[in-house]
């Protein structure tokens, strides 16, 4: 049979076209993330994502539009056209997108997609099977209200649906995090003893459509490519000796062996989530950031709520009140030890969130239950697209200092 030629010039490009990605230099990821010189630009979160993707050496990206995500995957389309991404298409909808990107990952190539609220929900059956299939994929998630009533506003309730899937999950505070976490996510997810998909969430609009300062490395550098031969399970490439029971075969007979197989497979997925912590630390420093350690009043937050909490800390300080802040960078693995250590000495802990379910509050409660004497206050929370005024947080904290506090908003 005929063989394909290695590098075909795509239709519409001149014969001497060179993919922009081929002109980039592969560098050590730690050097890229910690030491390489950076310059700062004032850009939107979607643009920060684009700049991260440019440096991520992505093989296959599959897109489907949904506000507020669309902007990012459109930008990924331009990166494909420039030759930074090798393969790209707009899929039919999100189950198609999420199934196809898993197919790409199974081929052993670096795979990227993105979505928001309702799109995430539509793709969830596929997404929730990625960890069990041990498919490293990076999913950028720009949080948005889940219908109904219909809205496109920021609200991060959809994160709660991903918590128990076995996915890695980082939640960025701002444009800078979106850039840094995306680079880290590819590297962590493809580590052999991890081999799991990773979500990088940011709160829609607040981060995606607003500008912030983002310090970035020279675009001439990129991450090393995914090595399809290096993973916890073999790629589905037919490059391994044949076996009659393939990795994806259903072991679904109703007997004890099959139950054990499935149970141990699940245990291993969740163990891999924990193992990933060391790699996240390598790239992001710690899994949490602590402001004013040892303070009696602490705020624990992730995503955009961190920015509001920072302002609350600053304004409290002006009034001579010390408030501490724990920024949770990774939701999975959840930094239990770190949080536990950081709240020693706290009397009251506030968990402000951009969703009504209070998933972070529940995480914090189950982490600290029986191990910390502080009151863990469920809020304040805003949702449905509301912003979180700093005054709301300040009011709640003032209330907390009373004998019989009653929190309302």
């Amino acid at each position, binding site marked *: 049979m005929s063989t394909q030629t290695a590098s075909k010039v795509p239709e519409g490009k001149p014969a001497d076209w060179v993919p922009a990605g081929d002109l980039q230099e592969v560098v050590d990821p730690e050097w890229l993330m910690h030491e390489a010189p950076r310059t700062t630009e004032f850009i939107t979160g979607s643009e920060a994502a684009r700049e991260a993707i440019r440096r991520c050496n992505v093989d296959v990206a599959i897109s489907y539009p949904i506000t507020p995500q669309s902007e990012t995957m459109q930008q990924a389309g331009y990166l494909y056209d420039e030759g930074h991404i090798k393969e790209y298409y707009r899929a039919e909808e999100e189950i198609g997108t999420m*199934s196809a990107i898993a*197919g790409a990952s199974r081929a052993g190539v670096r795979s990227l997609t993105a979505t928001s609220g309702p799109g995430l929900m539509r793709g969830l059956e596929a997404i929730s099977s990625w960890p069990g299939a041990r498919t490293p994929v990076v999913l950028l998630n720009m949080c948005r209200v889940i219908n109904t009533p219909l809205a496109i506003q920021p609200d991060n309730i959809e994160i709660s649906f991903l918590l128990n899937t076995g996915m890695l999950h980082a939640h960025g505070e701002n444009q800078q995090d979106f850039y840094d976490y995306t680079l880290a996510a590819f590297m962590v997810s493809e580590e052999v003893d991890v081999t799991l998909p990773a979500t990088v969430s940011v709160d829609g609009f607040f981060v995606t459509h607003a500008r912030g300062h983002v310090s970035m490395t020279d675009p001439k550098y990129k991450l090393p490519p995914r090595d399809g031969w290096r993973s916890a399970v073999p790629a589905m490439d037919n490059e*391994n000796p044949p076996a009659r029971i393939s990795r994806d*075969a259903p072991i679904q007979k109703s007997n004890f062996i099959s139950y054990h197989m499935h149970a141990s497979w699940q245990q291993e997925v969740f163990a891999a989530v924990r193992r990933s912590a060391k790699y996240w630390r390598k790239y992001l420093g710690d899994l949490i950031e602590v402001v004013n350690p040892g303070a009696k009043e602490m705020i624990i937050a992730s995503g955009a709520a961190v920015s509001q909490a920072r302002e609350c800390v600053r304004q409290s300080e002006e009034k001579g009140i010390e408030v501490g802040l724990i920024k949770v960078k990774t939701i999975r693995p959840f930094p239990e030890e770190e949080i536990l250590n950081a709240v020693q000495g706290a009397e009251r802990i506030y968990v402000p969130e951009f969703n009504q379910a209070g998933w972070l509050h529940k995480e914090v409660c189950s982490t600290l239950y029986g191990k910390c004497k502080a009151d863990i206050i469920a809020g304040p929370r805003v949702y449905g697209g509301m912003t979180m005024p700093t005054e709301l947080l300040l009011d709640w904290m003032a209330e907390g200092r009373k004998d019989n506090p009653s929190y309302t908003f």
Partner: protein
Amino acid sequence: MSLANLTPSPGFHKWLPVEYRDLVEHGPYFRDKKPKVSDMGKFKEIVEEHPMCAGCAMTLFIRLVFIGLPTPEHTVIVGTAGCGRLAISQGSIPFIYGNYGDTNATASGLKRGLEVRFPNQHKDVVVMAGDGGLIDIGFQHLMHGWFRQEKFTTILLDNEVYGNTGGQESGMTRQGQILKMAPRGKKTGKIDALGLAKVSKVDYVARIAPTNPARVARTVRRAVLVAREVGSSYIQAYTSCNIEYAIPTPDVMKDAFDVEKDRYGFEEIISDRAKEFLAEVEKKDKAKK
């Protein structure tokens, strides 16, 4: 996969199960002359034992598909929930078993990923799934894969029923048929999937019943080669469900012949570009002989 990958080192050879040694020594991989249907019984097949119902026509068909694959050592099969995967997963070819109905989306990403990763080695991707899996739950992905002209083969194992969940009607069930969830008989007709393939400009479309094994193998080979070089390909195969349609096991082949004669005759719909390509390939094949 290379032959070296497959071959055990001499020290290990005798400790490997005879099953594996047979696959290496007498399997269909890396053969100048690939074993044919007429060689059945004289070589190690990709699938042999399986837990499907005795006499199920689908299993015969799946066996023949494996024989028809032009390059089994560089093929990946994508399947889904349904009876077929019980046998397909016992085949010695990597098999992706995802969520119900996700096959053609998965195959789209897989095929493109394999092309990026192995620019100098063809990797054939073949979807094999039931009528429920492809025409009902996976319909959108089937159609859009065709619209995008994805270069993989889809084989529909059409038993005209949801076999694996115990006999419910599917989009491919015929009008009037009484089945579970169709207590008064199916209200509407069988979906014209071949017609849809045609209007979607699928490059190679075939309808077939497992009555002529050599023809099944040849059809599969054609479909896979077209997907490799030209565009999408689709085979719709009548593979009766003897359990849910109460066909006595000894009569399964008689039923296949009857249905073939009545409404499932062999038919190919081939685009001009695929015709040209196949003529070229088959001319070379003849010259080799």
